[in-house]
């Protein structure tokens, strides 16, 4: 078995070379035709297809495209972000973290004096921090932060949502989705000398978006219970 697995790629390669040799040799005999659909026209057609595709490709609306992060984060950096979040004293400290971006904000009117925070998430990748405001403005503010150096940080299919139901704040994880991703890569001959960011599957080893954070601020008369950690002021 091991011998087979060692030599199989080589055998496949040799086979492929053989097929290519056959194809090249067959098509090498350029036969000129007096009339009819000659080889010449195939060549012209081929060049046209290439040109059209190239023009089309460069007029594609590339603002829709995501770009590969220039400095993808590794395990240690991601852990550092987690630690920083843990140790954050207040929202100001969070805002100062370069690695985090605000993805979404909610401001929800709240009259009651007890808030239960419920999360369907097991809390692996999202931190839920709460702070009791000094004012009594009858408003709950929620800010969603996500790691900005990850591939997917846009707020659509995989966005968290919050919903108030009586005195329960439901934090709803995005529904599990199967995302399809097209990666338009540059050629290896191009990337050999251009210092471009390379797309790697490791980006996903820490989840899709890296550490995320929901920062909840409640009026000071409200008592909070549930899946939440408190930020002492």
């Amino acid at each position, binding site marked *: 078995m091991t011998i087979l697995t060692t030599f199989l790629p*080589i055998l496949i390669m040799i086979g492929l070379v053989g097929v290519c040799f056959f194809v*090249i040799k067959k098509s090498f005999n350029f036969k000129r035709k007096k009339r009819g659909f000659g080889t010449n026209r195939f060549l012209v057609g081929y060049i046209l297809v*290439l040109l059209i*595709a190239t023009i089309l490709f460069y007029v594609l609306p590339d603002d829709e495209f995501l770009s590969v992060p220039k400095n993808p984060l590794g395990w240690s950096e991601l852990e550092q972000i987690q630690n920083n979040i843990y140790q954050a004293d207040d929202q100001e400290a969070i805002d100062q973290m370069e690695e985090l971006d605000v993805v979404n904000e909610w401001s929800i009117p709240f009259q009651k004096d007890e808030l239960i925070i419920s999360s369907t998430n097991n809390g692996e990748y999202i931190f839920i921090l709460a702070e009791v405001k000094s004012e009594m403005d009858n408003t709950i503010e929620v800010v969603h932060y996500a790691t900005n150096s990850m*591939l997917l940080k846009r707020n659509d299919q995989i966005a968290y949502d919050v919903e108030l139901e009586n005195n329960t704040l439901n934090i709803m994880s995005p529904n599990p989705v199967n995302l399809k991703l097209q990666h338009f890569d540059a050629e290896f001959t191009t990337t*050999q000398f251009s210092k*471009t960011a390379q797309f790697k599957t490791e980006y996903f080893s820490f989840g*899709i978006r890296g550490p995320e954070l929901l920062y909840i601020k409640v009026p000071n008369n409200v008592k909070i219970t549930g899946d939440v950690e408190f930020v002492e002021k």
Partner: protein
Amino acid sequence: MSLPEINTWRLVRKQHAFKLKSYAGMYTSLMAIQVIGMLFSLGGVSSGGVSGDEHSIEFRTYSSNVVIAFTFLWAFISSILITTRAYRNDDFTFVTNRLTSNLSNLLFLLSASVIAGITSIMTGNVNKVIAYFFYESDYIIATDITFQGLLMGTFVTILYIFAFAACGYLVGTIVQFHKLFIVVIPTLIIGSMFIGTNTHDTSLLLVWIMDTYGKETSILLFVLKMIGTVGLLFLLSITLSNRMEVKQ
């Protein structure tokens, strides 16, 4: 009787022009092999997936890499073909000697490599456009390449293709020198792939090639290495064939 002086370089250029027209098989075979390469990469040159508790991601990568690899093969094989009898003596119908014949072949292979390099880079766009319009996707992620980067990439591709052509040309010339090499050379190449497989998992030759050329990160050094290699290969071919007779 005084004979007119022959300007070698002018003759080489004439032969080059002649070969650009008459070796049209190079273009058709290039097209055939690139179309095959494109078909191979229709579903993406590589694909993979990650699935966690929340979501799973499937991704497909589109690029010309497969086509470029196929084009390398094309350069190698078709350079062998133009050293075969049917093509080798084409220019001996008209004015030539070994040197001008080889030099014009070199020029022709360079021209063909330029065409092949540009088209092979362009084929990636065909795959990307097809993927964009016909395949469903939630996200498109594109490797950012500046125009300058693209030009350099094309240039590097051309160099690689030309190097493969030079290899093929040498192999073809050696085979023309003695038919025994038809057996010897493939045996050596295939054999070299197995050498080192037990300890290294990959062939020592391939590792060396990858280290010398593929992992070179300085463009200047890379160009110098390529020019040196190609020059050496052609020099060998020319030296060998300079003693060969024209058999029709």
